């Protein structure tokens, strides 16, 4: 039994004038519990769309999508999403942002405090609890966004290019942090990225999508040992996986 089970999922958007856009077609993927799955593909191929479907924020137009054997029927706090932009609530402090999920679910104040303190220290933001988002650096804001998502103790963490707008150093640090957090929380992660090496470094499997309408072009299992350290970035195995995925992305013969 897979945790996420997408069977021939399709999504057609209708824009204001009623013209249809096929964003996703025949998307079939099974994700096991505790798996870290990376998704790469050209811009506009439907990566965000797939995350939104799993999050229950969009409805699919064909196929079936199951989460723990239940069809996805709407947003569920157990599937937290972290967006590319650091979408913290700008009128709330770090603590209040992280607290948002437990708060709306009616968790008691003392319990909330415990949960929030735990995740704030997990992502390393102690001492910044009372800052507002605009008083934080980009990396810190993304950490706060991750803590906010984790505070609901989600089974699935959906991450849409979370590190895209960060500088290379911050990005590498956060990748390591994310792996550490993932191992500690045992969440299942779907991680969309434009960076092939980021996908290889983080994932158990990397899903490669073709241009719109998004179909899966290939899935690569990344057999690199864990825990992964920065050093593997220069290992021949790592580069082998990278090359393999790059070939999948650029394979002209498979383009329709």
């Amino acid at each position: 039994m897979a945790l996420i089970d997408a069977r021939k999922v399709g999504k057609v958007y209708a824009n204001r004038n009623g013209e249809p856009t096929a964003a996703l077609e025949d998307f079939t993927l099974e994700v096991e519990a505790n798996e870290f799955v990376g998704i790469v593909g050209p811009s506009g191929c439907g990566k965000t769309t797939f995350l939104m479907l799993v999050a229950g924020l969009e409805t699919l137009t064909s196929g079936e999508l199951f989460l723990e054997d239940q069809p996805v029927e709407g947003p569920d706090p157990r599937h937290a999403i972290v967006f590319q932009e650091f979408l913290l609530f700008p009128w709330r402090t770090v603590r209040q942002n992280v607290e948002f999920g437990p708060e709306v679910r009616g968790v008691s104040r003392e319990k909330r405090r415990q949960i929030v303190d735990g995740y704030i220290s997990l992502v390393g933001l102690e001492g910044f609890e009372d800052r507002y988002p605009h008083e934080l650096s980009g990396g810190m804001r993304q950490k706060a966004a991750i803590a906010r998502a984790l505070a609901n103790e989600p089974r699935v963490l959906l991450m849409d290019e979370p590190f895209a707008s960060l500088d290379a150093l911050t990005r590498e640090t956060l990748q390591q942090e994310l792996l550490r957090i993932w191992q500690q929380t045992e969440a299942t992660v779907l991680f969309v990225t434009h960076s092939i090496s980021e996908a290889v470094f983080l994932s158990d499997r990397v899903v490669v999508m073709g241009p719109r309408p998004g179909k899966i072009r290939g899935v690569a299992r990344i057999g690199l040992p864990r825990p992964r350290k920065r050093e593997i970035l220069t290992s021949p195995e790592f580069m082998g996986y990278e090359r393999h995925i790059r070939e999948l992305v650029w394979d002209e013969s498979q383009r329709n």
Partner: protein
Amino acid sequence: MNLKGISGRLSAKRYASPAVLIVAWELVGRLGLVDPFFLPAPTRILGSMWSLVLNGELFRHMSVSLYRSLGGYFLALVLGLGFGVLICWSRRAEDILDPVFELLRPVSTLGLVPLVIIWFGIGNGSKIAIVLKACFFPILLNTVAGIKGVNLKLIHAARSLGASEYQIWTKVIFPAALPVIFTGMRISTAISMMSIVGVEMLAADSGLGFMIVDAQRLFDTTRMFVGIITLSVLGFCMDYAARMLQKRFVGWHADSLAAGKI
């Protein structure tokens, strides 16, 4: 860059030029350079103001004007917020209300005064109605713009974190829209003073606007100045209060803007 700008700096320098101006004005009056009928000296105005304070007349006109403008303002606030939320919440309500409001909005407020007098009489009712008309639209339009401008992804984030539709309104849409709503509220505080004076000058038997036209009929320029100055001070105080509230409740917005993070 001096971010505090012209309004934020509280140094002695700031008061120098107005002080010079007032002294010059006083001298012009004292030396008889201009007929005091046209331009009474500041000390004379203050004296007249003091006697109007003592006999309670100034306070009476001021409280009448304040009652009317604040009354109209708060009615406009309640209705503007209410209809704004309704329009954003229900497509049907928007389709019905929007054309009506678009039709009423350009109607000249002061042009309505004679009609409103016939409908509501010469007393407070007509004044409150005029202030309401004048203040309603800025509040309504900014409420709608504020709510419609809320980043959809903030709503997505809240929804995926488990917020109910009601919580999305109270915990996301409303706080996110508040800076724009505040803009409408602040614009309307100024408009409420402007419109109350206008209507009191046209048709009233009390209020600061009436006090000024009444003084004109009696050729009492000093008293006119007392009225004008009182109005300016009131307007300043109201805007100051609005600014403080804004800073208190949506300070995060200005700070985020200044940090380039919105």
